């Protein structure tokens, strides 16, 4: 197992914009790190820098305590799983898995045994002699994992490995990857744009935007105490509601703030409740299973609320939405940074008209 340390990494592609601005992170040995962000945020570039497929323009990369800036990919003791799997199309599954072992001089009998072992772990045994072209998407994904696992490296890099799979398979593979991490105990750096993957897999999540690291912390911290508006909006399904704090009825706290209200802290009422609430009109409802996702117009703007299906009747057009300000997040309107408000500053005087 080896830790990875990135210090002040900067990267620009020739003739292009700067992709990474001064990114610094420290990954502990055995950690499952997820780097998440919208496309173009630099997350894949960061992974390629760790892999050695790209060189940073500035900054230091350290792997297992050794400066790795100038190490070739093959000297970094790292395996990588590519988004499109990058399986060698002219080799069988067995050869794909064993190729890295062959290049490292492992005798044939031994590498075949190892390939067999990995194939058994990933339920690929029946397909060992097939070429990748004759496999389904999920099987190819598994072969890509097998190829990485066969080499027994201390670090795995995964570049959106599940993005080409259908939903059911993605959820199943997500569990498998988590299980695999537990078994192997290796450091995993996993890149995705899918926030559900990020929150469910990671020991720690790095959120990136436009080449800047926004926040790097445990998933629960990122969810509960996002560093800024962007992080709050990027993580969480359904997405957080932003309303001007002043527009919340009775708001007497600081000016110039935006309140972030996650749908789960909003509560629907058919009658005006005793607590502070916004009057709202139901515009659209989406069924998500046991819950309904309700899009409502209010004086503070459009709000999305989740509610158990049985609590909402179709006829309910006129509603009241109450909110729990203790669990609301507040952001500075100018900087977008989250503001920690002392309790009394988020006070609301209930003015009943």
């Amino acid at each position: 197992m080896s830790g990875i340390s990135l210090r002040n990494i900067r990267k620009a592609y020739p003739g292009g914009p700067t992709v990474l601005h001064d990114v610094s992170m420290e990954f502990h040995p055995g950690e499952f790190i997820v780097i998440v962000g919208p496309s173009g945020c630099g997350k894949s570039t960061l992974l390629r820098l760790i892999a050695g497929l790209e060189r940073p323009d500035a900054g230091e990369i350290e792997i297992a305590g050794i400066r790795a800036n100038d190490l070739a990919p093959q000297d970094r003791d790292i395996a990588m799983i590519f988004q499109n799997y990058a399986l060698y199309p002219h080799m069988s599954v067995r050869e794909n898995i064993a190729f890295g072992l062959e290049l490292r001089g492992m005798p044939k009998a031994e590498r075949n045994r190892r390939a067999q072992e990995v194939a058994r772990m990933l339920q690929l045994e029946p397909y060992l002699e097939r070429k990748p072209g004759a496999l389904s998407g999920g099987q190819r994904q598994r072969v890509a994992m097998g190829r990485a696992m066969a080499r027994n490296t201390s670090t795995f890099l995964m570049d959106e490995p599940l993005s080409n799979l259908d939903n059911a398979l993605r959820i199943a593979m997500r569990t498998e990857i988590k299980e695999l991490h537990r078994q192997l105990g290796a450091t995993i750096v996993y890149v995705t744009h899918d926030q559900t993957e990020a929150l469910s897999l990671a020991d720690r999540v790095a959120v990136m935007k436009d080449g800047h690291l926004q926040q790097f912390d445990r998933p629960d911290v990122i969810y509960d105490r996002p560093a800024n508006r962007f992080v709050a909006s990027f993580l969480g399904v359904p997405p957080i509601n932003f309303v001007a704090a002043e527009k919340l009825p009775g708001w007497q706290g600081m000016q110039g703030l935006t309140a972030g209200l996650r749908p789960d802290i909003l509560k629907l009422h058919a009658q005006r409740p005793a607590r502070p609430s916004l009057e709202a009109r139901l515009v659209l409802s989406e069924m998500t299973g046991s819950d309904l996702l309700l899009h409502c117009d209010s004086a503070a703007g459009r709000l999305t609320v989740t509610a158990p299906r049985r609590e909402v009747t179709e006829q309910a057009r006129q509603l009241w939405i109450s909110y729990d300000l203790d669990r609301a997040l507040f952001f500075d309107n100018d900087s977008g940074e989250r503001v920690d408000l002392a309790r009394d500053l988020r006070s609301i005087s209930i003015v009943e008209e």
Partner: protein
Amino acid sequence: MKPENPIVAMLSLAAGLLFMWPVLYSVWMSLQTADAFYAGKLAFTLDNYERAITQFNFARYLLNSLIVSGLVTVLGITVATLAAFAFARFTFRGGDLLFGATVATLMIPSHISLIPNYLTLAKVGLLDTYAGLILPAISNGFAAFFLRQYIRGIPKALDEAAYMDGASPLTVLWRIIVPLSKPAIASMALYIFITEWNNYIWPLVAVGRQDLYTLQIGLARLYKINPGEGLVDWPLVMAASTITILPVLAGFLLVERHLVRGITMGAVK
């Protein structure tokens, strides 16, 4: 393939015969004695082949042609593949310029380099040697260009995966790129082989010794050396021509499967 339309099938057959006719006619002619042929009679014999091979040294020319074309093909395709891999996958100082120069060689008629090549070889003493026949032909701008385009179509992630697996650039070339480029390499190898096989002007200039003649030179000399007061011994010439085309035909049949795949490949992917 099954002809769907009888008219199309007939037209195809007619076109096929039209193209085949000169070849069939020369084979037909080569199997007759000269006297009978000129007298308009039929008399079949293999004499012409025997004479071409024994009397006119065609076995030696055939060997020379096989050596020269074979080595030019092997060396040429090696050089072209290495160059194509470099052009397709690496950025290096002057790379674009070099590639531009490679493509520019396609626009220069080969005859322009005839005299400089001759002078160079004369200076290093390689005239009248196999090396003199082979060396000027092993750099082939078209093959390098064609293979580079093909390699660029192979996802770069495969190279990267191999590098992560522990491969060196040459291992990537040999284990990943070459196997995946087989159709293109086979097409180019055949192209180089045929071009060199048919090369007439350079062997004519570069060698004077008869034991280094290639088939094309030998064939041309048949016109001059065969007797008969202005009459050319056509059946003999045709027998020699048939000997000349057979290896090319064999080569084509050998790589035909790859060749067709190479040509259609770009359309599907």
